[in-house]
């Protein structure tokens, strides 16, 4: 917020600190994309700039949404996105191939992306409706598990492990914050330990390979482990200060695959070094911190949970990508929002931020609801 007599009231009411942070992150992304294209705004940087601006405008306009509107839209939204997911699945079935998106003219709609904020909202709404006394009962768990599990399973069979995994983590985080018993998580963890080998058995070959290579990337440095190996070389060779802007050999000479999408962080760190990497991580941490504060300061149970869940979405996006790029997690195809080239992640990020800004605006404008 900036309070000044000169700036018109609606503008002054915008969370400028967050907007600057987001723009800063997006700028780092654009600079990196410019470098990755060999010092050219084509084919990525310009397009990405346009996408960021469009979705930032959408996010900013979303900040005027009323909490009640969001609340009432939660279930219809969820159902709508769920239908789209099913539609994608049907389409995939018809065309006998993996299908993740619906093509609507020039726009590729990826329903699984919409499912991330949608699941947060629907679970927040569910726990908002659930009487406080029921939180320790099964009534608090199975409907949520169902709301989460079915779309996650649909996404899993697309197959899109990364998104499915993220969805489950986001849902679990929301349920955790909503207050369901600790035991569930312990049990869930145990179930996961049991389910992991089973999941491994039903995985596609390429997914299985990725998991195996994650466990030992050097086992196949030229084959499937190539991505992580080259990514680590890019990051490690950057050192503290990096090789200098536009001087990253790994990305410029194409040794780093996907240097503009999933592995954009490696491209950036190669040129900007540890310092650049830390700056980017801190910028994301500040965004997440802002989201957490929105949640902490929220006055309604819905906005508390929704804000925390939306923040978790951003957090998982960033952390899974970074873990993947630095060899701490298997390569599951999660991009770094705002930095990686591609509209989906920007969209999810901006939708989440738009909802968070709207919730934050309510805190400032509404009188505090007594608990």
């Amino acid at each position, binding site marked *: 917020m900036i309070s000044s007599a000169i700036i018109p009231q609606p503008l002054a009411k915008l969370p400028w600190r967050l907007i600057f942070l987001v723009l800063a992150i997006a700028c780092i992304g654009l600079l990196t994309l410019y470098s990755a294209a060999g010092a050219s705004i084509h084919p990525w940087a310009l397009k990405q700039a346009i996408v960021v601006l469009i979705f930032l405008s959408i996010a900013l306009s979303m900040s005027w949404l009323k909490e009640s509107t969001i609340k009432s839209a939660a279930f219809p939204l969820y159902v709508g996105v769920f239908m789209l997911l099913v539609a994608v699945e049907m389409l995939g079935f018809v065309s006998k191939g993996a299908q993740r998106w619906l093509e609507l003219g020039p726009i590729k709609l990826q329903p699984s992306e919409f499912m991330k904020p949608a699941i947060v909202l629907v679970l927040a709404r569910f726990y908002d409706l659930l009487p406080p006394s029921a939180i320790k009962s099964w009534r608090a768990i199975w409907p949520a598990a169902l709301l989460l599990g079915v779309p996650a399973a649909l996404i899993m069979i697309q197959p899109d492990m990364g998104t499915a995994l993220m969805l489950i983590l986001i849902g679990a985080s929301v349920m955790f914050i909503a207050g369901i018993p600790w035991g569930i998580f312990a049990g869930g963890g145990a179930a996961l330990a049991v389910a992991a080998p089973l999941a491994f058995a039903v995985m596609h070959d390429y997914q299985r390979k990725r998991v195996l290579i994650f466990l030992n990337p050097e086992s196949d440095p030229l084959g499937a482990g190539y991505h992580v190996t080259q990514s680590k070389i890019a990051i*490690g*060779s950057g050192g*503290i200060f990096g090789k200098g802007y536009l001087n990253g*050999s790994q990305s410029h*000479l194409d*040794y780093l695959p996907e240097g503009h999408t999933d592995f954009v962080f490696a491209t950036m760190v190669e040129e900007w070094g540890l310092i650049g990497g830390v700056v980017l991580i801190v910028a994301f941490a500040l965004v997440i911190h802002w989201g957490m504060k929105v949640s902490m300061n929220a006055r309604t149970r819905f906005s508390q949970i929704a804000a*925390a869940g939306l923040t978790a979405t951003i957090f998982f996006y960033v952390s899974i990508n970074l873990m993947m790029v630095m060899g701490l997690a298997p390569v599951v195809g999660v991009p770094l929002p705002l930095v990686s080239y591609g509209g989906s992640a920007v969209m999810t990020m901006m939708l989440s931020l738009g909802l968070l800004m709207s919730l934050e605006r309510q805190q400032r404008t509404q009188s505090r609801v007594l608990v």
Partner: protein
Amino acid sequence: MKHQRITPFHQSLTFSRRMMVFGGAQAAIGAALIARLGWLSVAENQHYALLAEDNRVKLILVPPRRGWLVDRHGVPMAINRSDFSVNLIPQQMENPEQTLRELAQLLSLTADDMDRILSDLKQSRGFQPVEVAENIPYEQYAAVTVRLPELPGVQPMRGFSRFYPDGPAVAHLVGYVGTPTSADYDRDKDPLYLTPGFKIGKQGLEKTLEPYLRGTPGAQRIEVTARGKLVKELDPKPDGSGQTVQLTIDAGLQQYAARRMGDNSGAFVAMDVESGDILAFVSMPAFDPNSFSQGIGRTEWKMLSEDDHLPLLNKVAQGLYPSGSTIKPSMALAFLKQGIDPKRTVTCTGSYRYGNHIFHCDKAHGTLAMHDAIKHSCDIFFYDTGLRANPEETSDLVNYMGYGEKFDLPIPSQRYGTMPSPSWIEQKIHRQWQGYDTINMSIGQGYVLINPIQLAVMAARIGSGNLVQPRLLMGSPRKPIPPLAVDPQHLAFVRDAMTAVVNDGGTAAASKLPIDGVLMAGKTGTAQVHKLGADERGGRTAKQWNLRDHALFIGFAPADKPRYAIGCIIEHGGFGASAAAPIVRDTMTYLFDKDKAMAALAPLEQQWGGTLAERNARELEQFKAAARATTA
């Protein structure tokens, strides 16, 4: 179970606590990410920087310039001459078929060449050059160079090829270089072997001195993309030329001896008696090593391999011959050592009966003592005296003079022959030593086989009175040379007799040095390779060239204070005095007076039809014409 009532207050408390946990977990993961980033880019930085550099920079090896071989005065014997070649960089080619078609036309490539280039291109690694043609004439090089803009990926190169200024004269000494074979690569696994234009030593000193001559390869450092596309060239790593190796050879003498041997088949070794330095190491006839270094043509190879004078055989190191009468000075030393009186006389009637066999001498020498027996090379004196001596002791002393000895020389293979003795006969042939073994041994026939190096070493040892060891490399450590364990008076006696051979009406009287005050001492030898028929005995000349006797000569000069020793064998040259001795005379003259030696050579070469190089070229031309005629 007590059912706890949960109020919105409790819920708020839970929410705060859960948010604390969730936030804490986020912070922990964030910290872990930064720690990981720090680990990769600080602790592991060097490791990954190296890997990134490995990715980025590829090396194209540049063959090092091979070290020179120079003679004892620094005259080059094997050098590098710049030449032109054309390579292809597969990655940079845009239209391979078109480019190859044009190259084939410009360089007149054959179908075989094209097949090889195509298979090389298939196996290449993109940025590694593939050889199209080497050693092309300047006109073709220029033709390719001007068309470069239309020929992307073609790389005309100026490189180096090995050149031997003396050609065939040094062939068997220095050997030649050639492209490494796949067997060479499998043995050494050196990537340099795959580099176009790189050659390794295949024969002779080029082979044995390979570690010194090769040098260290340079490299063109290039930056390439993951797909092997060239981005830019970086500072090249310069190559380290191979070492220059100085030989003990006197290139002038080597060349002279090769020319003086004419069309004969034979071997010639000259030594410095003081140091053991080998001054000349000639095996004739010889191939032109320059042809081999450039990849010898099929016709030339056929010509060389079909020649009955065996130009591909290194006769110095691998030829074994009966020593014939050149053994006599050593025999005399052995007799004297065993106390046989040099004044003891034997009467030579031209034939000698031993058991029921008659051994011959070339003529009836009458009654003579040891001095004259050496001078006139009387076999019967040596038969008779040999039979009075102990054959084991005789054989030992002859061995000591160099027979059967393997020398420490940097030549790929050395055959060192045999010197029979009673114990050797028992061990190898499983029979008793007989009197006729002594007879054969005493004139260097029978089982006696020596190589030409041993012949020269024997002359050097008698001449210097020291246990001289031959050397080929100037840089090799000089070991102290002990004197021969032979009575100096005996040596003086033998040297005196050898001087008489040349200067006092002996067998080589026609080979006196034409230099005032310098006398040569020597000994002729005629080694029988074929049992002469009665009709041939008179002229000692068989009808067929390859059944004639070998002619041998050993000599040293000056006779009173020896400096140089020479051993020479002319295969099937007939009588030693007529074929081998004049060659030694002229080469010895060369060592004291070059002009006189050259003057002696000129009329001979005129008679033979030109210099060695001219005759070789003519012969090859004739052979090629004949080959064309038969194929046409």
